[in-house]
């Protein structure tokens, strides 16, 4: 399949002949109705969480969130005020940022260098090495939890933010290198040759020619890694400590008594969702391109 991000982007549809438009019109009614129902079913869970997060614990214990649709006075900002006054939540939110941003930047630096080497430098064993990277795409990160926990113990990285960041970068690398290399390969050969003819060093070719042209793929990668790390629970559960835990771990702590803590859990979960949703809506195109590049992690 052509599911690899290329500089030219997606194929465009041809103009449809009249007969096809007729068929489309005939089948449009039922399809519209069905898809409208599907869309509502898909949106309702998120709306439910959003509405619940604006209700008090007492209201949430008394009735379902839909009760607030007929009694809008139930809606209150109090849960969010309480949440933002909770030092654990606030510091874990800061930790999430401190883990996510470096992870997203570092992976671009490391992966683009390697992708450049795989795409445009000639060296022995290149193809085999790249095949290994492709093979590593599917390695479950669970395999590394125990060994890396021991390794971090020795290195003093256990429970630290750099430890969590390095783990995320390493497990993001196969996909990142794969994505960027496939994009870099599509850059016209002549552009690089011209720069090399002028005596430019590999570094110059990389930083002045390939990186600027590779920005769309780099954007995809950054968004992907950002969402991946922001939303991670497992890696942080294992490698972050009490002081360095991100928001996901802090919320999970509350889950032991779900109903009793719903006034904390619902707004916290929504707070956790807002940033990825904003990123998603702002950069949808790059996100989809990243997905189409065959993410298999």
């Amino acid at each position: 399949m052509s599911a690899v991000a290329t500089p030219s982007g997606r194929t465009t549809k041809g103009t449809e002949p009249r007969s096809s438009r007729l068929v489309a019109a005939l089948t449009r009614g039922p399809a519209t109705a069905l898809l409208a129902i599907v869309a509502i079913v898909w949106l309702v869970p998120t709306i439910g969480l959003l509405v619940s997060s604006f209700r008090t614990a007492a209201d949430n214990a008394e009735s379902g969130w839909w009760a607030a649709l007929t009694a809008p006075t139930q809606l209150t900002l109090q849960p969010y005020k309480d949440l933002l006054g909770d030092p654990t939540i606030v510091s874990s939110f800061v930790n999430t940022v401190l883990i996510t941003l470096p992870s997203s930047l570092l992976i671009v630096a490391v992966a683009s260098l390697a992708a450049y080497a795989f795409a445009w430098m000639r060296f022995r064993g290149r193809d085999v090495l790249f095949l290994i990277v492709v093979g590593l795409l599917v390695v479950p990160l669970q395999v590394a939890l125990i060994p890396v926990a021991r390794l971090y113990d020795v290195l003093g990285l256990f429970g630290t933010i750099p430890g969590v960041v390095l783990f995320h970068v390493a497990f993001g690398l196969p996909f990142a290198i794969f994505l960027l290399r496939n994009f870099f390969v599509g850059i016209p050969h002549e552009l690089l040759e011209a720069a090399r003819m002028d005596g430019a060093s590999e570094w110059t070719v990389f930083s002045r020619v390939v990186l600027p042209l590779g920005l769309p793929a780099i954007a995809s990668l950054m968004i992907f890694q950002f969402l991946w790390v922001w939303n991670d629970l497992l890696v942080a559960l294992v490698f972050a400590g009490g002081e360095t835990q991100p928001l996901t771990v802090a919320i999970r702590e509350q889950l032991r008594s779900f109903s009793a803590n719903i006034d904390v859990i619902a707004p916290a979960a929504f707070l956790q969702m807002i940033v990825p949703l904003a990123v998603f809506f702002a950069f949808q195109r790059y996100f989809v391109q990243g997905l189409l590049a065959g993410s298999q992690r």
Partner: protein
Amino acid sequence: MSDGAQRRGRSWAVALFLAPALVLLGAIVVYPIFFSVGRSFFDATGSEFVGAENYQEMFTSPATLTAIKNNLIWVVFAPSIVTALGLVFAVLTERIAWSTAFKVAIFMPMAISFLSAGVTWRLIYEQDPDLGLANAAAGAVVSVVRPPGELPGARPSEEQSLSPTGDGGLTAPESLGIGETAAFGFVAIPPEAVPEDAVQAVEPAATDGGIAGTVWLDFAPGGEGEPGSIDPDERGLPGVEVEALAAGAVVGSATSGPDGTFAFDGLEAGDYELRLPASNFREPFGGISWLGPALVTPAIIVSYIWIWAGFAMVVIAAGLAAIPRETLEASRVDGGSEWHVFRKVTVPLLAPVLAVVFVTLVINVLKVFDLVLVIAPGSAQRDANVIALQLWKTAFGIRDFGLGSALAVFLLLLVLPAMAFNLKRFRAEDS
């Protein structure tokens, strides 16, 4: 610069460009694979070589067996349903004007963490139909198909006045002739459960051409009154259904009014049996236990489908857009129905894309962790267990690194076919 120096410079450059990636991959991805394989042959603390014992335990202990069984259920159902839904959505969105909006709605959950999605679905699965949306919806359907009765939990005030029919209803032991009356007193009804329109119960008035009766709450506030007789302050029970039977067949039915009275008119002469059918005593819907042992895994799979259908749809839609319109057009012109075109042309052309989506989902499903941890309540976590969750609990809960490593290696073995698929596809594409 000489040729040799240039080449040496180049290889230095290669090393510098690759070094950061290779060091990280080596230390955090590749080395752990080998370490885990070795570690899986040692005991919990790593002090003793135990051979294949960890693997033996993995396939015999109930906890890990449940996890493996559940992972199997996940792999069988989740990827296929998600791929099928994605295909249907991708094909149908081509027929609507608001396809972008639709895609955004379906795709949005992909941006949400498993944790927050899990919280969202745990709210939906609350057992109380007043709190959980799934049971509120189920309750709305149930209340139409099998409406709750007026007398759930009620008992006759006098044992001898009514006897069970065997299917949950009650019947009067003696049959009645025309002009006779019946009185059915009930207790064990909380006062607030009596309908608001209920008024003082009245004695049934015998009619000429029929049978009359009263259904009432045989209990007055304060406890005054005699069982079996209609006393002051005892209210009628409206809405109760009564059937009259002749020779085992229902010949009439009546519903009690606010004062508890009911009447059958226009009956032919003869003996009749009165019966209160089981529907009167049906309990109101108490909610399905979605997160109980039986349904917890399917319930979590539904939440997974909600998250991933958008991924399948977007990738398949991109594949669909790459199919030349003329190909589809030609088969339509040849007289193929939409279904025929879909089955014989669209799906075969999309097969490679569908395979990629399916394999991606299989890999993903094998590693499912957060959703189970978040949605399954503590009491159901053993029943909902999956390999990745069991691994985490084994390694970082009870700190058995031996069994934990064996589970990790098992997980790795399970994704190897997917790795082979990827490598094959990559080589085919890159050449």
